[in-house]
């Protein structure tokens, strides 16, 4: 549900404005509102030049601290609150610390990158040297020749043929070309040419865009045989140097990490206070702050302000008739069991304040649809294990934790549906364990499954329309009337259809037709001439739930095919491997496809009837926490 908000107005003497902001920041429940139209003698607070300068300095300091923390790998640390409130000297100290640590961290990162690069280069040369060791060691025997070391990417054998052809065409036989595949898949080339032909060869190499690896100057340049021993000596030193860099980074983290985190929180708090100041209004002697807070927190706000300022600061509630509901921020609050499903609502823009939060309905129908589509005890248990692993590896309140809990609910419904259909890895349970379907066998009873799916669709769409009536009845009665007529006509159509196929008594046909005839003009009056088209699309919406049956049948058929592979392929062992692979593929499909289609059924068919997006996100003015930045 969307929790009730109250619009509060806080008055007080102007010289206590900063202190009141401090208390509100400590409370962390008030979503500050933009000041309304200016009244005579009332103006918005404007930051002084000094405050604007402080704002800029704080932003810069925060950037340094953030980058220092990121460089030290401490961004994912626990949330920290700056307590007590930072002073000017604290801010200056944190700014200096952030700047100093950031520079040190940047230097360490550059050093580490250079060492890694050097290591990769030496390893490349080492492979090259290994491939042509004998030839390179005889380099001293061809003093009037120039050697080129070239690397070709794996599979570029055609480039090698072209290069050989070009060289022969240009300098005849005055070259030797040796090629050797490397363990990395690349091809090492050693090209030895007579010194006078060197410029022409360099041109060919440049045109062929091949990767030449000249001996680095830092190792003496010249002959590879002389450089390699120096490189190998350096290679043995590199791990020690890399370790030293890592140790230095760990030392910095240990020495300054806690203070940097405190600084991060303190700087962000002060910046939030400066950013909030222009949201208040002042007269010559008084101030006023307006904002939203959950209605249940109003007594707490009053008590805290009374405790701090006595009668000097007054809190009043703005009457509901004086504010537009779409301006109020939205906080979703649901029972623990439903809360993970708020994730699926947050994928869309939030619902407007005063409308319906669909989370409880999604929490029931989403796993039910998913379960009916997958409907297999084996896959359900696998999904349950996956959900448990994800849950153990995620932090409370994180997106991953919510996803794991949704997966858990889907797993439960999948197992239940699997028991209804008597499926355990397709027909394996039936063949091996004598499992029997409680409801029906999805392999054969396609029509009952189709009827079940479409019936569920009818219930879901009718529920959506009923919620549409409830959501609009107070503020948009005409729209609510239109939704109500659509609901009545949809039910009448369903009743008439069921009566014609003798599922319901035949006597219901006439009343259903009368309802249709009466409701039709009212519908056009309420919703306009497009209403009949929308009504038809609603019938289409109900039929769209047939996808539950289609995906369900596809899922069970794939599982059955997987099981038949054991007998179909000559060797039992090979058949079992293929069957397991096929089940794995089917399980992967079962994770994605039903999720997407269950989401679609909610977002398009269900939400389309009542959901009113465009709600404002609740961002209370408070202390910085890591969660606040998500």
């Amino acid at each position, binding site marked *: 549900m969307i929790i009730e908000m109250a619009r509060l107005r806080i008055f007080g003497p102007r010289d206590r404005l900063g202190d009141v902001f401090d208390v509100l920041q400590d409370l962390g429940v008030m979503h500050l509102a933009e000041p309304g139209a200016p009244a005579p003698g009332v103006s918005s607070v404007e930051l002084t030049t000094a405050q604007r300068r402080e704002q800029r300095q704080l932003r810069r300091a925060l950037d340094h601290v953030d980058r220092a923390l990121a460089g030290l790998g401490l961004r994912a640390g626990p949330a920290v609150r700056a307590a007590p409130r930072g002073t000017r000297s604290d801010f200056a100290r944190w700014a200096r610390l952030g700047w100093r640590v950031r520079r040190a961290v940047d230097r360490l990162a550059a050093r580490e990158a250079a060492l890694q690069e050097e290591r990769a280069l030496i390893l490349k040369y080492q492979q090259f040297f290994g491939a042509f060791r004998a030839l390179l060691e005889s380099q001293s025997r061809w003093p009037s020749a120039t050697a080129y070391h070239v690397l070709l990417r794996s599979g570029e054998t055609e480039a090698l043929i072209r290069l050989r052809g070009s060289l022969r065409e240009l300098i005849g036989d005055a070259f030797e070309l040796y090629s050797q595949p490397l363990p990395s898949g690349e091809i090492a080339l050693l090209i030895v040419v007579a010194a006078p032909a060197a410029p022409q060869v360099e041109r060919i190499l440049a045109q062929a865009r091949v990767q030449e690896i000249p001996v680095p100057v830092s190792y003496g340049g010249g002959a590879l045989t002389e450089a390699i021993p120096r490189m190998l000596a350096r290679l043995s030193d590199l791990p020690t140097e890399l370790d030293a860099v890592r140790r230095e980074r760990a030392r910095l983290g240990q020495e300054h990490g806690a203070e940097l985190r405190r600084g991060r929180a303190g700087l962000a708090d002060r910046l939030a206070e400066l950013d909030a100041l222009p949201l208040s209004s002042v007269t010559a002697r008084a101030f006023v702050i307006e904002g939203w807070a959950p209605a249940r927190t109003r007594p707490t706000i009053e008590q805290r302000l009374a405790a701090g300022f006595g009668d000097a600061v007054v809190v009043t509630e703005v009457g509901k008739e004086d504010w537009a509901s779409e301006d109020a921020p939205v906080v979703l609050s649901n029972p623990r069991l439903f809360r993970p499903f708020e994730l699926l609502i947050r*994928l*869309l823009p939030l619902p407007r304040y005063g409308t319906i939060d669909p989370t409880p309905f999604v929490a029931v129908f989403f796993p039910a649809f998913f379960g009916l589509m997958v409907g297999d005890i084996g896959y359900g248990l696998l999904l349950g294990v996956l959900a448990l692993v994800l849950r153990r590896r995620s932090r409370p309140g994180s997106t991953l934790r919510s996803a794991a809990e949704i997966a858990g609910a889907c797993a439960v419904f999948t197992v239940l549906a699997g028991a209804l259909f008597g499926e355990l890895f397709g027909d394996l349970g039936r063949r091996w364990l004598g499992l029997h379907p409680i409801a029906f066998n999805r392999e054969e009873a*396609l*029509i009952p499954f*189709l009827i079940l799916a479409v019936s569920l669709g009818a219930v879901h769409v009718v529920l959506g329309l009923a919620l549409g009536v409830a959501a609009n009845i107070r503020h948009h009665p005409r729209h609510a009337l239109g939704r109500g007529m659509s609901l009545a006509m949809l039910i009448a159509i369903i009743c008439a259809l069921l009566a014609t196929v003798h599922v319901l008594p035949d006597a219901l046909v006439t009343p259903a037709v009368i309802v249709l005839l009466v409701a039709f003009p009212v519908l056009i009056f309420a919703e306009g001439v497009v209403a009949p088209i929308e009504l038809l699309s609603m019938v289409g919406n109900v*039929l*769209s739930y*047939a*996808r539950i*049956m*289609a*995906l369900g*049948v596809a899922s069970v058929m794939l599982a059955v095919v997987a099981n038949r592979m054991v007998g179909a392929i000559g060797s039992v062992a090979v058949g079992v491997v293929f069957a397991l692979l096929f089940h794995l593929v089917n399980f992967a499909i079962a994770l994605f496809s039903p999720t*997407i*289609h269950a*989401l*679609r059924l909610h*977002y*398009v068919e269900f939400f389309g009837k009542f959901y009113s997006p465009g709600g404002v996100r609740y961002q209370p003015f408070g202390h910085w926490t890591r969660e606040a930045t998500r």
Partner: protein
Amino acid sequence: MEAFGVVLAAALSVGLPALATAWAQSRIGPAIAASMAEKPELTTTAILMIAIPETMVILGFVVAVLILFRGAA
């Protein structure tokens, strides 16, 4: 011959919408991937856009099932 006609009708009723769905998704996929590269908040829209054409093949499948069952009866 009649059985062949029933099977052919069922195959066409699922095959043609499948081709149509594939064509629609081949156009939607790259477009939505490009949009998501610029605006990652379009992920939900992407899911919907990809799933919407699949309705055709799903309804085609349902029709195929009905044809086959009527043929068998």
